[in-house]
């Protein structure tokens, strides 16, 4: 992979990140209208003109939107995401507390979903159209179609009736406090997340595997007398691996912004909960901060996926290519 390519991609990524910041600013700063009215609700009507102006000045709302954007953007570059209007706590602190929860959830879900999805995808692809293929595909479609909130709700109800366990935000145990206690809390939400993920991984694996299995080099390998197991893993799965890895990476990026429902139902203090609380309390600094962070993470993850993709494939890994 050439340095030039890498630099070009990094430049493109930075451009996208600026674009992301603009969109977040426009959507969450300009669209919601007057923050003060939004914040104080009916009380806003009782403000005197002077109080109102003072507040506007305090929040920097008296300057032009462009100036506001650059002030805000400059803050971002210094790692300043603003202050929660509700609690006065810097948004970066709130995110700092919430991020590990979401990350752990996402990683756990991936660790469960990827092997399951890959194995079942291979199983389905090993005999296209056969009973095993149709059943795996049917279950996979259900996995995608049953909404996460339904699975999460049912799981919580089951936990309550079977173990008299009711998740609550107050009793959250971090991984530092107790590994086992933490895992007990995280396992079920991660499993719920893993269902849809595994279905997606399974579908990608199935089609990538089928595509690779039809390649000429697979026949060449069999023609050498290579064992069927080795043909499947070393040749077919390895080649199918490139699209699978790409998809898994992208799904991981999605997951960072997609744990909201599960965090809500299982009362986990992650980014999703933070975002949801921010939205419900119209605490826009929080909403902006979380949205921005997750989108940026998504962009960076996608960039990483692209780099990994290129490293995995010798055709794009090597420097000068011959014609």
């Amino acid at each position, binding site marked *: 992979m050439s340095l030039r390519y890498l630099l070009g991609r990094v430049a493109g990524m930075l451009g996208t990140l600026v674009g992301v910041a603009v969109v977040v600013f426009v959507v969450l700063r300009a669209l919601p209208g007057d923050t003060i009215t939004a914040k104080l609700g009916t009380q806003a009507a009782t403000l005197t003109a002077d109080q109102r102006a003072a507040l506007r000045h305090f929040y920097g709302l008296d300057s032009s939107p462009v100036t506001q954007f650059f002030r805000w953007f400059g803050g971002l570059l210094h790692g300043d995401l603003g202050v929660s209007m509700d609690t006065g706590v810097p948004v970066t602190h709130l995110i700092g507390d919430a991020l590990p929860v979401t990350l752990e959830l996402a990683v756990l879900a991936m660790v469960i979903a990827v092997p399951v999805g890959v194995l079942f995808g291979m199983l389905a692809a090993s005999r296209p159209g056969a009973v095993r293929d149709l059943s795996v595909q049917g279950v996979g479609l259900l996995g995608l179609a049953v909404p996460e909130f339904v699975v999460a709700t049912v799981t919580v109800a089951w936990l309550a009736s079977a173990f008299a366990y009711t998740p609550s935000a107050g009793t959250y145990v971090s991984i530092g406090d107790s590994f086992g206690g933490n895992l007990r809390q995280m396992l079920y939400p991660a499993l719920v997340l893993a269902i849809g993920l595994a279905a997606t991984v399974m579908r990608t694996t199935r089609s990538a595997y089928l595509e690779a299995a039809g390649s000429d080099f697979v026949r060449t390998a069999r*023609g*050498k007398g290579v064992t069927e197991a080795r043909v499947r893993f070393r040749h077919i799965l390895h080649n199918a691996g490139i699209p699978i890895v790409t998809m898994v990476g992208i799904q991981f990026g999605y997951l960072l912004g997609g744990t909201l429902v599960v965090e809500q139902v299982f009362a986990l203090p992650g980014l999703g909960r933070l975002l949801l609380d921010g939205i419900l309390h119209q605490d826009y600094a929080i909403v902006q901060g979380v949205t921005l962070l997750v989108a940026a993470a998504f962009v960076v993850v996608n960039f990483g996926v692209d780099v990994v993709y290129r490293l995995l494939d010798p055709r794009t890994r*090597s420097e000068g290519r011959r014609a």
Partner: protein
Amino acid sequence: MTVLRIEDLHTVVRSRGRDLPVVRGVSLDVDAGEIVGLVGESGSGKSFTALSVLGLLPEGARVTSGRILVDGEDLVALRERDRRTRRGSTVAMIYQDPMTALNPLMTVGAQIAEGLRAHGIRGPEAKRRTLAAIEEVGLPKPDRIARSYPHRLSGGQRQRVVIASALALRPRVLIADEPTTALDVTIQQQILALVDELRTEHDLAVLWITHDLGVVARIAARVAVMYAGRVAEQAGTRELFAAPQHPYSAALLASIPSPTDTERGPLPQIGGAPPDLAALPAGCPFEPRCAYREDRCATGEPEPVHRGGSDTACFVPRERWGVRGDAMEEPA
């Protein structure tokens, strides 16, 4: 000495709930050190014959009857596990498109060594034989080639690698399925010369599949002409070119330029199309397109007979072909 003997091979493929006959009673012998050409239009069942020998038929296809003997051992009767151990060590194959025949994610050396390892050759011995195999096919700097990924090599180099890999275990039989079709003319000639040389050196029995009679003329001692899953005619190359005994062979010959001409024209063109395997005619499958057909050609399928130095599955001897046929087989 006969190394490969195919006896009355029948292969079908399942399509839309019924078995289509793709190979219908092919019999062929290839001796040690001999190259037999297998020619015929695309779709005539050449590749299916080859894949039946290797035991690598695609999903849905299977051999229904017949025997495939290599040094007297019937491969069809073997269990899949034993079948696998014969691939590469007893029978090996090289393929049409060298660009796609190699795994893009493995180095060339690893791909050759993998075949050796599948047959119990490991460690330094595998490495030594990998390099020797690369050297044998005339590639320079074997250790550098071994470390290369396929995309770094040209089409001709890749085909040499495929040949090296196929011959690394010194198989008795090599099946070449149109290995030069995708290459340009000079490279084609080099590959032909290489296989010819390796054949003498290792006393290989080679079945060379092609739809190019020019290639056959150059390399094969004997030729089998396939049509609609059967061998229409089998003869010495010289005999076939001098006096084809089957109207289909004659038509194929008429459609190529002089065999010494290196410029390849378009694929052989004969009026009409091969029959639909799902609705084969009751008589000779070539009858609808044949210039010399007689009444009985439409009712019964001819069995091979020995005539004029060849085995031909045709009711009508050359002598009865008449004036029009003589014009057709005149070399250009």
